[in-house]
């Protein structure tokens, strides 16, 4: 059984990774290092949601959602970041019509 925050992170991970120009969510460093060493234990089917953080809610009900991602270098980074915002806003709007959440999108690399 997962927590609501984990469920939201998993949903948003799928939303973000479907946006054109997104290479992948910024993984935790240990996961990245594991991916470089073939003898390491595979991560399995669990989606990597370490690039999504949810903090709050504050007394007014708002949350801060942090999204850290790596973009594809063949597309303008700003355009990709804006497309991610649109997709995330649309998703949050679909699940909570008056979402007061703050969404902060950070690009950590381009590949």
């Amino acid at each position, binding site marked *: 059984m997962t927590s609501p925050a984990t469920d939201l992170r998993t949903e948003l991970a799928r939303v973000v990774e479907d946006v054109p120009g997104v290479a992948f969510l910024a993984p935790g460093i*240990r996961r990245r*290092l594991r991916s470089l060493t073939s003898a390491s234990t595979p991560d399995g089917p669990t989606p990597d949601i370490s690039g999504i953080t949810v903090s709050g809610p504050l007394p007014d009900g708002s949350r801060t959602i942090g999204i850290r991602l790596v973009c594809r270098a063949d597309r303008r980074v*700003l355009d990709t*970041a*804006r497309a991610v*915002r649109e997709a995330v806003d649309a998703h949050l709007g679909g699940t909570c019509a008056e979402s007061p959440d703050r969404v902060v*999108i*950070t*690009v950590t*690399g381009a590949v």
Partner: protein
Amino acid sequence: MNNRPPETRTDPDDETLPCGRLLSRVWADWEDAVHDDHTAQCAHCRPAVADLERLESRVRALDAEPAQTSFDAASVVDRVMDTVRLELRPGRPLPLGDAAEDLRIMENAAARVLRRAAEEVPGVRAGSCRLTPGATTVEVALSVRAPLTTPDVRAVAQEVRRRVHEAADRRLGLRLGAIDVRVTDLVAEAAPHREEESSG
């Protein structure tokens, strides 16, 4: 026992282990051979150290097996170092787009693109690239080495500035202010690209 005070995370990319220790600190202690009871017993610190040990052993194996060149060893080492460098030293977050958009790019990710743009000028090698966020724009301080044969160093710097500005606009969408290009050396021929000089 974890008898250290709780560690303060100043870098948003620095992972805090469930035990409260910073991953960067655990790894730094391991590299400096600093041992304590907590790290030796902690269910979170020990796997973190094991990951780094595994990484190091794999990288060392590249040197030990030069005949098995089914892969580019230098490339793997570069990728490893890029990974560590970008994850542990991502630099500062820089604003992308309008402030109200809450969009950011990490300094070193942007600097990498700008350095590459500078190196599109023939013979130029980029060194350090520091990006400083201002009120509405980002200031650039870039050092480069230019070819000794260049007839006009000022023109080279100007071309570097033009390429950097263009890359910031077209590839990143980053709004630049002043671009300070410092030619730190004139070299007889194109020096080998040393990524380790270019961080930060």
